[in-house]
């Protein structure tokens, strides 16, 4: 009798522990085919960067701070003003997303489940390098959609490596899945040029380099940077003063992830930014 009809696959491949391939086997995740571009696609149709948002991350004295504004847009329409683009993947890892929300959230969900699946099946935590590589592979698998102009995602990945050498680690990616380790800071999304300017300036000529900042100073720089990005980029909300909507700010440290309460962000905003 064919057991697979009864509920599960007898020909399991326990050693692999790869959740995306399990999902594909069950038809729950789209295949990784990078299809040829349409023959008559014009240059404009081929690829348009649509990562309309701003996310940033930098290392400070208490770990890595990751911040994202709350605006979601479609073309030049604001769709949602309470989007959460800073997503917890596990107890020590954050993925912040810029790009097409449907793809980005799905990717975060696959990554989150992949890491759990790995831990449960293989009975050990995935290494930081393994996690970084998993996200890279998801981006790579998604590249067919990027080429079709419908699914570009450019994330930042922040984590705390408790194993080999205890330290905060920060990575950013391009849409094809190349990973870059950032020494001090990273920013992606349409508002990132302004943010990178500010972080570069602060890191080199500010009162203190970024990695020596206290939590309060770090939060205030994150808020100022997002507000500056919002000044010229319509896809970035910065701080909504009338609606009292603040960016999402999370901190990754040895102890895990802390989500800063809105009241705390509001207090820093009132004192240092507004």
């Amino acid at each position, binding site marked *: *009798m064919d057991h697979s009809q*009864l509920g*599960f696959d007898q020909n399991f491949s326990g050693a692999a522990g790869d959740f995306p391939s399990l999902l594909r086997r*069950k038809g*729950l995740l789209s295949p990784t085919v990078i299809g040829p571009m349409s023959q008559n696609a014009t240059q404009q149709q081929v690829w348009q960067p649509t990562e309309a948002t701003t996310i940033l991350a930098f290392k400070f004295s208490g770990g890595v701070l990751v911040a994202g504004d709350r605006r979601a847009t479609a073309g030049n329409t604001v769709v949602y003003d309470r989007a959460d683009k800073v997503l917890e993947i596990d*107890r020590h890892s954050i993925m912040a997303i810029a790009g097409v929300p449907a793809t980005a959230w799905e990717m975060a969900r696959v990554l989150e*489940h992949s890491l759990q699946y790995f831990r449960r099946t293989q009975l050990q935590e995935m290494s930081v390098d393994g996690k970084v590589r998993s996200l890279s592979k998801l981006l790579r698998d998604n590249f067919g959609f990027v080429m079709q102009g419908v699914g570009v995602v450019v994330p930042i990945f922040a984590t705390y490596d408790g194993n080999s050498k205890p330290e905060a680690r920060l990575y950013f990616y391009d849409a094809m899945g190349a990973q870059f380790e950032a020494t001090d800071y990273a920013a992606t999304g349409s508002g990132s040029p302004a943010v990178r300017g500010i972080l570069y300036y602060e890191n080199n000529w500010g009162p203190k380099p970024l990695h020596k900042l206290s939590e309060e100073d770090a939060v205030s720089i994150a808020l100022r940077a997002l507000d500056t990005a919002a000044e010229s980029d319509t896809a970035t909300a910065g701080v909504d003063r009338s609606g009292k909507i603040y960016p999402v700010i999370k901190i990754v440290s040895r102890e895990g992830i802390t989500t800063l309460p809105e009241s705390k962000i509001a207090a820093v905003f009132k004192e240092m930014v507004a």
Partner: protein
Amino acid sequence: MIEEPYRWVEAIANRREYIEGQLAPGSPIAALGYRDGILFLTLGQTRQKLFEIYDRIAMGAIGHPGDIERLRMAAIELASTEGFTRSAADVSLRRLVHYSLSPVMKSAFEQVYGPPYLTRMLFAEVGARPEDDLFLRVEYDGEIASNGATHARARQDFAVLSGTRQSGELMEASLKTGHTPVASFESAVQAALDAWSVGHMLLQVTDAKELPERAAIAQHRREQLARAAIEAAVLERDTSNAIRYRSLSDKELRSLISD
């Protein structure tokens, strides 16, 4: 031949006897619902016997490592795909065991030309309150025993797994008197260690009807603790983390044990 009904029954009976013999020396596992979660505890010699299945589900098993591994992997795959496509709240131990594992184990057991699963498993799912905790024990033939109330006995806030029926029954008797669902973590650990000791002592005895003397249990427990490592895990009731499973180190537990 096997096609004749009588031969089939005989073949199944032989197979049952063989599997029971193989499982008989298995080190017992006790699972106890207490105030802040569910505790799984056993004294291990070499192999890991307690596993995380999903956010709120854990498993303990005795038997052949290859068979345990296949079923463990199947359970994780099923729970993970369900949790991914729907949500973690839709992953249910009852469905996992009743609709997927049990039918597969039953048919493997009854296909007398194919290999059966040589394992006995204990699953638990932590609930919001101790009354909501679910324990399911799955036999090699797909038989399921739950901790729910039946006409013969009240609901139990614990479940056990052992190599022999008699050892398991007396472990339950030990927990019936020695454990309450409102117990603290420390007293749950004590009750679990006592139950394990009872179960382990009675694996060698063929016709015990009653619990051993308290002193004998305590002595056996001391001897075994000096020899073997404690393997334990909890499913926490605390809802602040989605993932409730946490394995406990031997060192962590030794400091709690009084004697």
